[in-house]
């Protein structure tokens, strides 16, 4: 990939998205082995710079980097302290002076990865979620999960339900799905649907339909993507109560019946059980939430690898070589990998 940074899905071409997904598929094998490590990024340094609490995404990036043999450093910054004197630019320049190969950044303010990427000219910047803007690796892992179960994304009917206005997951997914030719219905209370959201799909093969009726969005859907009701993000001022939200917009078994029989349900987590989704649905057979987490590591390995100069074919080769070495070694192999 000829790209220094991964700032959003919006900037990516269809080809780039497919390259990342294909590479991620190759890397998924690594996680299924006993020795979950390839030497690909040995000697490289990845800084995880998190200005917002996150267990899942930070851990996922850290594991991804480690499975590629990169050195990782985690920096968690309370946003309140950064504005006391040190500006974003100071932080960025300081980090760049330590010559890392990649900075993975999560920040509550939209646009910070873009600002950072402009300052750090020699470091890859990877957006791990910025404000309500984008969360590209989440959309990529969602796509990998969907592709695994539906073979292709083109032509699918996908429902995205919940707080679209404050959701970076929704935006990244809307870009990715419509680029790859899926049609997306977004649904939620009107107070949480941002203006002109349909225009995100302008000149894309997939289209966006907006509705305030959840049933309309779920009807014959192939995929249902639920968004977390972000209680900490004042979403509560946009609807009367969580109880009412659950009863009108939550996904329960009855609403799920409106979807296609082979529907899959995905959720970026963490789940608010009983609010955006009933427990029997999220724990049920249609739910792929844990598979998403597994795919998250593979996607992040692919992104780190591709941004740091690797290409798809080499990835497949390296994974296979490592697998053969492992089999030839003395350790018992319990992996289910089919290394044909």
């Amino acid at each position, binding site marked *: 990939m000829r790209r220094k940074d991964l700032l959003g899905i919006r900037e990516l071409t269809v080809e780039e998205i497919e390259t990342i997904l294909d590479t991620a598929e190759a890397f998924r094998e690594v996680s299924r082995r006993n020795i979950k490590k390839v030497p690909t990024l040995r000697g490289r340094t990845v800084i995880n710079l998190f200005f917002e609490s996150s267990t899942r995404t930070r851990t996922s990036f850290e594991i991804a980097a480690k499975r590629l043999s990169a050195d990782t450093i985690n920096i968690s910054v309370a946003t309140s302290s950064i*504005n006391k004197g040190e500006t974003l630019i100071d932080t960025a320049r300081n980090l760049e002076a330590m010559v890392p190969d990649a900075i993975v950044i999560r*920040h509550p*303010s939209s*646009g910070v990865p873009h600002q950072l990427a402009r300052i750090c000219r020699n470091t890859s910047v990877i957006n791990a979620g910025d404000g309500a*803007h984008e969360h590209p690796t989440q959309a990529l892992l969602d796509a990998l999960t969907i592709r695994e179960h539906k073979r292709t994304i083109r032509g699918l009917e996908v429902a995205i339900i919940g707080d679209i206005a404050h959701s970076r997951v929704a*935006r990244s997914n809307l870009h990715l799905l419509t680029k790859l030719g899926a049609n997306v219905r977004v649904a939620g209370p009107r107070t949480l649907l941002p203006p002109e959201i349909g225009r995100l799909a302008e000149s894309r093969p997939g289209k966006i339909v907006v509705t305030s009726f959840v049933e309309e969005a779920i009807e014959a859907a192939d995929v249902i993507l639920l968004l977390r009701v972000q209680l900490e993000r004042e979403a509560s001022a946009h609807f009367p109560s969580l109880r009412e939200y659950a009863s009108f917009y939550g996904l329960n078994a009855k609403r799920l019946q409106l979807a296609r029989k082979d529907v899959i349900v995905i959720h970026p987590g963490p789940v608010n059980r009983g609010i955006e989704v009933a427990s029997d649905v999220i724990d049920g057979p249609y739910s792929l939430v844990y598979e998403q987490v597994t795919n998250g590591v593979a996607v992040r390995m692919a992104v780190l690898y591709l941004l740091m100069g690797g290409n798809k074919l080499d990835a497949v080769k390296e994974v296979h070589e490592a697998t053969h070495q492992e089999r030839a070694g003395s350790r018992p192999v319990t992996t289910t990998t089919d290394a044909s």
Partner: protein
Amino acid sequence: MQADVLIQDDRIAAVLPDIYVEDAVIFDATGLVVAPGLIDLHVHLREPGREDKETIATGAAAAAAGGFTTVCCMPNTQPVNDNATVTRYIVERARDSAIVNVLPIGAITRESKGEQLAEIGEMYQAGIVAISDDGHPVPNAMVMRRAMQYAMSFNLPVVDHCECKHISAGGVVNEGFYSTLLGLKGISHLAEELDVQRDILLAEATGAHVHIAHLSTARALQMVREAKSRGIRVTCEVTPHHFTLTDAAVETFDTNTKMNPPLRSAADVEAIIEGIVDGTVDAIATDHAPHHADEKALEYDKAPFGIIGLETALSLSLDRLYHTGKISLLRLVELLSTGPARVFNLKRGSLEVGAIADVSIFDLNKVVRVDPTKFRSKSRNTPFAGYVLRGGPVATIVAGRVVYNCKEEE
């Protein structure tokens, strides 16, 4: 018209085809435009209180370099210009340090808190030319109504930054496609329009003169147009950035595209230009808002609102309005000089014999490359860095004295 202008002391003495006076200092303006001095109704000079961003002296120097001979400064200093002592301080600092006329605008309410009326009469005696709680618009309609009634005793215009803060609610960019795309909190056009509507109704009821600051939406402009046709005393100004840029400029997350009101949609920009053309707009004002580079180097949603404008306003107006054939040269001078003079009842903006000799000389065709490092302003926060514009200031004369001459710069 081609003519010579004779200035004697601080006044225009004659405007005739050929003037010969022995010993006169001659400024050769052949091929240039000689206009009444430009007037900016809306600047922030930051003194007293934030002299690290701008001072009355540096702001005035920036004004002179931009062709302006008069600037009216907003009261949101520290302390707020809400009493005659602060007004007198500004007037005295201006007399001692400013190379252009600096006319203060007083607060509407004490500390611009929107509650108790400020001592408007005493500030009037000390030299204010209008009242405004710019940036902290009076939320209480009854307080606004009383302010309008009270200001009438002194024939002072009431200037309003129209923004219903309940609607804007922490927004940072125009609410629309780009706020959705970028995940930035939006400021709906409604925030402006609700207050414009309120002010027009209050102006109609009280008979007071309300001036809408930095008008930015199509609907607000339509409201002003209709109110004017009904004879209501309402005037409005627009900024160069609101007729030059749309909210698409925000896409880079450059904090120099963050101002309040925000850059609006393409349809709004089109409507604003229509208002400039058809006469609805009374003045072009910059809303010159200097901020220290450290403050602008923050996250988009944390950076302060505002950009500077004194040193780019004339070039943007010439390039975007005159050279595109949208307005005549006469209308351009009206928007930048005679119009604003009328809005604030200033005895300026005239080249008639006997008028104070405030003169702006500019070149319609000089190529201007916007280079913030060369600005006179203390601040550099402009989205126009690197722009190449056609037309710009050459020399500025205040009360007969040349305060800026671009030839001496080179």
